[in-house]
Each structure stands twice: as C-alpha cells, then as structure tokens.
C-alpha cells in the first residue's frame, strides 16, 4: 500500500516472445518513486498511511505533506488517464485532495488510506461526468476513443534525450494502449497499478463484485499484451 516501500522490481522480459528491447526500457527508466524528490519529515515518513492520516486529524500538517508526497503523482496519473482532458484531470485531482482536507475527520483508520483517497477521486470524476451529462460507461464502452496525448505535457524532467527515441516510442505505445482500454478495464488496471489496491478495495470503489474486477484485470492485461506484441 505504501508507495515509499514499493520494491523496485527489475523485469527483463515480460513475455517470452518480447525481445530485450523491453528490458532496455525497463532498465533505462529510473524507478518511479513518488517520494524520492520530496521526502517528508523523518518521523512522519516512517509511519503508515493510516497513522499519518490520524496525525493529520490531530492537526499535524507535516503528516499530510508526507501523504501528499506519497500519493500525489499516483493519484494524478490515475485521474489523468480516467478523463478526457488534462485540464479536467487537474481539477479533479485538486478537488479530490481538497475533499481529503475538508473531510479528514470523517476518515477512520480501519479503512486503507489509499482506498479512501482513490475512492474520493473516483467519485469526483463520476460527479464531473454527471455534471457534464455524459454517460461514461457508454461513452467508454463504445470503443471509439482516439488515443489521447494528455500525458505529453506532464512528462517529468527526468525524461532526458539520452533515453532515446526508441524507448520514447515504446513508452508512448504502452501508455496509449492503457488509454485505449475501455473505462472499466482501464480503471481497474489503474487502481491496481497506481493505487496498489486489493481486488476487494477495487470492487468496493467501482461498485462491482470481486470476480468482475478479476475479469476486468484479465481483459486489460490481454489487451495490453496484444497491443505491445503488435507494436513489436
């Protein structure tokens, strides 16, 4: 659950017929750590998310900063790939964090903080769809979405030219493939990849049974693999 303690796994090949070009991508990118650039105070940084939230309920702003540092990038990427426009993503991202601040006293430590946070973001996105009179599932299930370059303007400074054009294209192909997933599959995948949530938490957030989440993840996995294989 904790981003800071996420083990930096080195994967050399994700499939037997995918050559070492993937490995080069995997090894050339530095591990994505949300907290590496802005470490929080030592005491609070060693606490679990739930303990940090309890401290924030007691007006410890440093504890909030630790939580924000841990989840800032992950929540932003989740929202960014959930909506159509980057400006929308920014607004929902801010609304979600402001909701965390305003309703901090309603949080109970028995609930995983990550599940609570991503649930808030999910509901903010759903509110946005409703306010825009969009029917998100139909719109997404139609499968007529065009790949969107919503991510280009948010590429981090760590992306240096020496990574090479090949890796850039490969990365873009993967992100485009994620973007093309139907919304339910995409959201399940993102909640797993960005939120590191359990199947139960994903089921609770998206309001479907656990088995449905499993099947969505399986379909998402299949589609991503097919896309990457075709790209090769």
């Amino acid at each position, binding site marked *: 659950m904790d981003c800071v303690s996420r083990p930096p*796994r080195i*994967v050399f090949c*994700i*499939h037997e017929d995918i050559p070492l070009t*993937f490995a080069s*991508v*995997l090894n050339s*990118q530095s*591990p*994505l750590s949300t907290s590496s650039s802005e470490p929080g105070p030592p005491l609070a940084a060693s606490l679990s998310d739930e303990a940090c939230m309890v401290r*924030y309920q007691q*007006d410890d*702003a440093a504890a*909030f*900063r630790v939580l*924000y540092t841990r989840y*800032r*990038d992950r929540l*932003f*990427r989740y929202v*960014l790939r959930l909506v159509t426009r980057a400006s929308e993503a*920014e607004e929902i*991202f*801010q609304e979600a*964090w*402001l909701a965390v*601040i*305003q309703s*901090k*006293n309603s949080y109970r430590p028995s609930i995983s903080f990550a599940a609570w946070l991503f649930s808030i973001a999910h509901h903010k996105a759903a509110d946005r769809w409703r306010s825009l009179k969009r029917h998100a599932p139909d719109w997404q299930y139609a499968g007529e979405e065009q790949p969107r370059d919503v*991510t280009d303007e*948010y*590429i*981090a400074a*760590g*992306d240096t030219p020496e990574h090479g054009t090949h890796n850039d294209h*490969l*990365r873009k192909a*993967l*992100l485009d493939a*994620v973007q093309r997933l139907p919304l339910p599959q995409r959201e399940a*995948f993102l909640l*797993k*990849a*960005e939120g590191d949530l*359990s*199947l139960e938490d994903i089921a609770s957030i998206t309001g479907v049974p656990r088995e449905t989440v*499993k099947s969505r*993840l399986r379909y998402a*996995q299949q589609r*991503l*693999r097919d896309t990457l294989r075709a790209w090769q």
Partner: protein
Amino acid sequence: MNDPALNDLITLYRRAAHERPPPAADQKILANAKKDRRRFVPTPRQLASAAALLLLAASLSIHMHASRRSALPTDSSVLMNDTTSVYLIHMPVQPSSPLARHLMFDTYSPH
C-alpha cells in the same frame, strides 16, 4: 490476487508513466492543508452536544420567562426600599440658585 504476468505488466507501466501534477496544484493543496488547521471543524458529536446545550438553554429561558409573567407582583417589587425613601425625603426641592429662584418665582408665584 498474485498474478506474476499482471505484476510484470504493472511494473512496465509504472516505469513508463512519468506524469506529475503542475507545481501550482501542489502549492494550492498544501496551503489549504495548513489553512484547515486553523479552522474549527466540529465533529458530529460536538454538533450534537452544542445542539443539546442550545435546546436546554432555550427551554430554561422560556420557563423562566413564563414563570416571571405568571407571578403576581410582590410588595418588595412595588415598594421602595428604605434607602430610596430617605433619599427622596431629603432631596432638595427648593431652588438653590438666584436664577432658579427667579424662574420658580415667575412660574409658580400666584399672580
């Protein structure tokens, strides 16, 4: 759910996804988090206690008001006490200055 193939895909995705929110969003959110410390946000229990106290105070006030209206005036509320009586008895009623005397004379003297 421990699916190594899915885990590998997620690892690949995590290394490819590098987007970050704009710094302005960080400033706004962190500023709000600090601001919220100074703002009192009552819990449901505090709200319930405050409402109960308010109700109690209102009922007491109504009760006291009603009993005050229904009670007959007592002697003590009508009669002056000794101090007031003594003051009124000894209060100077004669004009003290020549001008006052002149005015009193002009006003009240029988013609």
